[in-house]
């Protein structure tokens, strides 16, 4: 039996469940990015947030750079998605981890995974 993975250390699926509504609510109440989240299908959008968090927590979801690029391409091209928006969302992820009481080392690992998506999300 090897060392526990990041995902296991964070608490696995239960941790993702606890995180998703905290994170999604923060993102929805941020006026600087709310226009990127204007949708009629909140269930679908919440599911996407959950999948992203699961992946950032080291979970089993698959997210290729290509998936990130394609998903965010219309936002970049038509709605001006840029670094400031990426940073705002990243900030909410950090705040979510803080609220859940995740230790600084594990939190840093999650943030590093999220940060690694910047160029793909911004289609650079």
């Amino acid at each position, binding site marked *: 039996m090897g060392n526990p993975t990041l995902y296991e250390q964070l608490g696995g699926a239960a941790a993702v469940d606890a995180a998703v*509504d905290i994170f999604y*609510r923060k993102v*929805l109440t941020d006026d600087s990015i709310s226009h990127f989240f204007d949708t*009629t299908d909140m*269930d679908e959008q*919440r599911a996407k947030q959950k999948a992203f968090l699961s992946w950032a927590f080291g979970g089993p979801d698959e997210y290729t750079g290509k998936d990130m690029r394609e998903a965010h391409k219309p936002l970049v091209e038509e709605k001006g998605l840029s670094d400031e928006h990426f940073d705002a969302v990243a900030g909410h992820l950090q705040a979510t981890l803080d609220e859940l009481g995740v230790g600084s080392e594990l939190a840093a690992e999650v943030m590093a995974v999220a940060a690694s998506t910047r160029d793909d999300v911004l289609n650079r």
Partner: protein
Amino acid sequence: MEITFEGRTYPCSEGETVLDALLRGGVEHPFSCKVGTCLTCLARAAKGDLTARAQKGLKPTLVTQGYFLPCVCEPKGPLQVAGAEDADLFGRAVVTRKEMAAPDVARIWLRPAMPLYYRAGQFVNLRRADGLQRSYSVASVPQLDEDLELHVKSMPRGRMSTWICDELQVGEALDVQGPNGDCFYLPGSPDQPLLLVGTGTGLAPMIGVARDALMSKHSGPIRLYHGALDPPGFYLEAELRALAGEHSSVEVHFCLSGDEEAERQATEKPKENYRIGFSNDLALADQPGLKGWRVYLCGHPAMVKAAKKASYLAGAEMADILADPFDFQELRTELRDEPEPLNVW
């Protein structure tokens, strides 16, 4: 991409839905909401792969038969499409009673030839002899009411609604498909506070859910907000006040969102009868914390969208927010690229 339908092929561009491809090709395929809610466009995929999105909301029996919603299906590969089998979907029903509850609101009662196993708050699709089809939410409760009750508001450009209000007679038959939707009461949490917000005839499923809850011995608070533009719009005011009078757990609020003329009409009755404002705004103002609540929303799509977000941000769980937006086909044709006006409910 190619769509095959009744022996002919139709091109389907990147990002185009099957429905739009068929309509573009001249096929008069039925549709209404164009957002995957009303199920009017139901078709079967005889061959080809379907995305989960294209089958969302369909009963398992329909999913396994390859039924899908062309209006939200952007095919990833070639698709062979067949029309829906009537026998799979529709049954005959006779109009047994009709009342005008307001100058522009009809209550109709239908008796299906084969019993329809529905839950209060779901919706059905009604189809006329000429094929015109529209969705209506059910106001009746199966264990309490013999017939299926629908509330139909006559819409300015509405073909079905004006026909139902002005012409449909008792004794006439219609085809009914359903039940559809998940906006219904769930037993199991009898203490849970319930918030029900309906605009216009969005009241229909709300009163169904409220009566279903009471019948199921729901003990938690039941708070219902009915939104209308003017006092005649409160077409079930007496019944709702009676319900609140009989059950201490029930609170009913009549929310007037129209202009000064409507407010003037309201002042002809004692002022405390009506509240001024949008039903969803008043509901959230009265209850800014919705953690632990179950929320039902029905009516104007802009209200449902705004209220869903507001309820979630107020602490309600996503799974506890049940929405039934009325996506009017005629309104959609006119307002496709514009934001929904806020003063229409």
